């Protein structure tokens, strides 16, 4: 019986074939914590008696969730992270460097075939590179920083087949919203997703990161793409590490298959307050929008800013709507400046904030007022997510968010794409 990609990666690490449902102890290639979770991991590390980390070059701490610090309490936690990094030699990405899930691939810390954990649920993003990467809590990260290992239950896999070409105005975000609509918020709990089909070769690395990033929104442990020319050349150009890509067997057995005819997709929106509350854009068109937000580990990459800039070039956003943009990293910001995208967006009325997670996670940088509607490129629209339980968050592609900022209400991006 053949192996799925999740099984194949874990088998290679463990050094023997592993079965689904089995619990395995695995050596980790890289691990990460952000400023919401690392301070607790550091405290637990010390309580466990930790003095040295197993390998400082395989651990990164990223200050991105509240960056720069919005208040005294968070400043103390950042201080704790900086001191720990100095003491142990682990890699520290400080304020403004960017969102952890953009930085790890961009800085070459993750390559195909890796096993990675992060104390952040969207660690599954690196599945786009064919890496088994998943979110854990602070205690698991602390134990792993000491031992270099963690345990996993080998997941069953749902095969997602994407066939056809993306129609005009439809993007990778819409593909995942369709998956969320079909699988629902817990449809893949404990399981792996594995992507196949003809659409994938036309998806850029940025587009794949968007899809892999949201695996957790259907409860999945990982969302895996098979390595191909696109991901292998991305990894080779960003990382100095040597790697051998891992593939599933042709006769792998899947728990379930979901096939999506991408040709037939239209722009989709997730309405408040759950990610699987997905509706065709037409049903929500005209909903007034007070704040639009482009950024996050889902859609804050260069391609996302480019898509928005194409729609907003030479135009002004609606005067009753704010457009906040948080590039996913300093590198993305620099490239946006160099290519002229930054100026196009500024001229259209956008406000740029420090590369980081603040607005999405509700710590600062764009907390909405009571009763306001926000359209966002983020991955979560939970009640209170952006810092106010009395606001309403709609999730969509960067194109739909840009078109909505322009009109001041939920709008169809296809009107603005030639």
């Amino acid at each position, binding site marked *: 019986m053949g192996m799925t990609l999740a099984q194949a990666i874990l088998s290679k690490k463990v050094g023997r074939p592993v079965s689904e449902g089995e619990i395995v102890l695995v050596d980790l290639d890289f691990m990460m914590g952000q400023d*919401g979770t690392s301070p607790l991991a550091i405290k637990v590390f010390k309580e466990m008696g930790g003095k040295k980390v197993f390998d400082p070059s395989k651990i990164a701490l990223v200050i991105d969730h509240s960056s720069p610090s919005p208040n005294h309490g968070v400043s103390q936690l950042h201080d704790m992270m900086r001191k720990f990094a100095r003491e142990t030699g682990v890699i520290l990405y400080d304020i403004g460097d960017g969102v952890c899930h953009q930085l790890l691939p961009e800085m070459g810390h993750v390559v195909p075939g890796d096993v990675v954990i992060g104390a952040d649920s969207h660690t599954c993003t690196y599945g786009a590179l064919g890496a088994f990467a998943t979110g854990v809590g602070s205690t698991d990260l602390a134990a792993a920083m000491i031992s270099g290992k963690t345990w996993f239950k080998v997941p069953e896999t749902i095969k997602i087949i994407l066939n056809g070409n993306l129609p005009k105005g439809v993007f990778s975000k819409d593909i995942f919203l369709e998956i969320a609509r079909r699988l629902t918020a*817990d449809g893949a709990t404990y399981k792996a997703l594995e992507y196949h089909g003809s659409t994938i070769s036309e998806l850029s690395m940025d587009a794949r990161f968007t899809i892999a990033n949201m695996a957790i929104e259907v409860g999945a442990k990982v969302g895996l793409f098979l390595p191909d020319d696109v991901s292998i050349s991305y990894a080779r150009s960003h990382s100095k590490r040597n790697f051998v890509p891992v593939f599933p067997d042709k006769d792998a057995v899947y728990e379930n298959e979901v096939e999506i005819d991408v040709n037939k997709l239209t722009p989709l929106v997730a309405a408040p307050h759950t990610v699987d509350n997905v509706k065709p854009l037409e049903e929500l068109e005209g909903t007034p929008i007070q704040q639009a937000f482009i950024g996050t580990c889902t859609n804050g990459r260069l391609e996302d800013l480019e898509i928005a800039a194409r729609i907003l070039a030479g135009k002004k956003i609606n005067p009753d709507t704010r457009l906040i943009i948080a590039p996913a990293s300093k590198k993305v910001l620099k490239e946006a400046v160099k290519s002229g995208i930054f100026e196009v967006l500024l001229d259209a009325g956008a406000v740029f904030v420090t590369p980081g997670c603040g607005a999405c996670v509700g710590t600062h940088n764009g907390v909405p007022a009571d009763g306001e509607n926000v359209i966002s490129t983020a991955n979560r629209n939970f009640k209170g997510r952006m810092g106010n339980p009395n606001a309403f968050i709609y999730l969509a592609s960067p194109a739909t968010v840009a078109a909505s900022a322009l009109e001041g209400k939920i709008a169809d991006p296809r009107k603005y794409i030639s």
Partner: protein
Amino acid sequence: MNKVIRGKVHKFGRDIDTDVIIPARYLTTFDPLELGRHCFADLDESFATRVSEGDIIVAGENFGCGSSREHAPIAIKGAGISAVVAESFARIFLRNSINIGLTVVEAPGITNFVEDGDEIEIDLENGKIRNLTRDREMNFQPLPSFLKQIIDAGGLIEFAKERLKTR
């Protein structure tokens, strides 16, 4: 540890996410009591004041979905909750709860078995839940014993320390 937990039920729906359990703006401390004061602040401001020590949360499917923040089970424990019984749990929340020693019980059928305010008794060893208010009983599959041992010890830190002592 308490092989039998008894308490009053606070009942929630499905897909209760960790942002709602403890909003990110309160993640400025690790103090369980302080986190407990803000537990469910965005859903029900009075929750923390209504909970009596030992009360039990009962919820629908996918409890604890979303963010990996371990502060979520810590806040629940800090609020005085003795156990969470749900139709099902999100993966990271379940693992975090075990690691910090919060009792979690996966019991399909629980939401039809109890109402808000009922008094229930959970027999962790034998996998039985008794609804004392309505005088009925249901079964569940207890956690594997090594995971129960971690919860019993009070979490992974205490478990590891105990193991080191007995070596």
